């Protein structure tokens, strides 16, 4: 690898741009492909596909054996509501490689002491998410139970390409939430993106166990094509 290629990959990571490095395994010859501006050659198309599935792998083209190494932007978790569950979830998600941000306009909840390693915003969710939008590598988890705070966050998430949306609350709370969002103009298929009650049904009781069930459900959405979905009954957390 050329020194300049290493620097360019690290710069792309900092700028949250997806890049794929193709390297010829016989000669070491390399090409760095910026996914946003990649063209239509077979190698570039393979790179785009590798980036979309976030999967590095081999690719043969014209008798040459390339390895496509995917460098995806970091994962992003926006937690709305600085609740007790959020304290544990922010730490477990951080360990799993997410950049974590807490959004809560209630300043007494979201403090640096309660949330180390985490970016804290005291803006309202729709404002915070306008400043730093959700993308394909983003998950949004709404934990306040308060429609004033959760609903604007969920509406913004539903209009984004984020891979996971979850909302804490009982079946009854969730039914009320869906009715409000429907009245706001969202269709049933759009609303099906919201995981509620949140988390996989692992019998979670404590905040830490609920955080694990949420992170497990996020992982299914991120890493599988949903084949787990029908097996994954919901908690009533």
């Amino acid at each position, binding site marked *: 690898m050329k020194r300049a290629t290493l620097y360019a990959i*690290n710069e792309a990571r900092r700028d949250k741009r997806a890049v794929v490095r193709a390297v010829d395994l016989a000669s070491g010859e390399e090409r760095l492909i910026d996914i946003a501006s990649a063209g239509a050659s077979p190698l570039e198309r393979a790179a785009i596909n590798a980036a979309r599935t976030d999967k590095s792998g081999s690719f043969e083209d014209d008798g040459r054996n390339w390895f496509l190494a995917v460098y995806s932007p970091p994962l992003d978790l926006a937690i709305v509501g600085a609740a007790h569950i959020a304290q544990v979830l922010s730490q477990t998600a951080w360990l799993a490689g997410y950049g974590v941000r807490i959004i809560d306009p209630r300043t007494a909840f979201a403090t640096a002491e309660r949330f180390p390693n985490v970016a804290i915003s005291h803006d309202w969710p729709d404002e915070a998410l306008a400043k730093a939008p959700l993308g394909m590598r983003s998950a949004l988890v709404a934990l306040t139970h308060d429609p004033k705070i959760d609903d604007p966050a969920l509406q913004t998430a539903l209009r984004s390409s984020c891979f996971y949306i979850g909302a804490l609350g009982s079946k009854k709370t969730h039914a009320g939430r869906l009715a409000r969002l429907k009245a706001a103009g969202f269709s049933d298929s759009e609303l099906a993106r919201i995981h509620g009650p949140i988390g996989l049904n692992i019998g979670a009781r404590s905040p830490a166990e609920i955080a694990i069930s949420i992170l497990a459900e996020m992982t299914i959405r991120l890493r599988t094509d949903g084949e787990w979905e029908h097996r994954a009954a919901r908690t009533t957390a």
Partner: protein
Amino acid sequence: MDTDDVLDTAQQWLASGRKVALGTVVKTWGSAPRQAGSQIAVRDDGAFAGSVSGGCIEGAVIESAQESMRDGMVRNLEFGVSDETAWSVGLACGGHIEIFVEPLIDA
């Protein structure tokens, strides 16, 4: 440690005037612990960051990386239980791994 930290570490080592080589998992079969794309950065003195296995083959990869820094050539390594030498370095998980080793060069 995740891949980006490995490359950040490689950049820091280069900036401090050291030589560096990279090892990348390019193919796995069976129960390999690290997926394709996993990387290790190796410094000329043998210090390393990241991983390409559960610790079974790192020693052999580091040695090969140091050779690649000396001669400037890339290398393709293969480890698996079917291979006597590979068994001696201890890929006890029963998997099979291919590693691409390359020096970081200025050109």
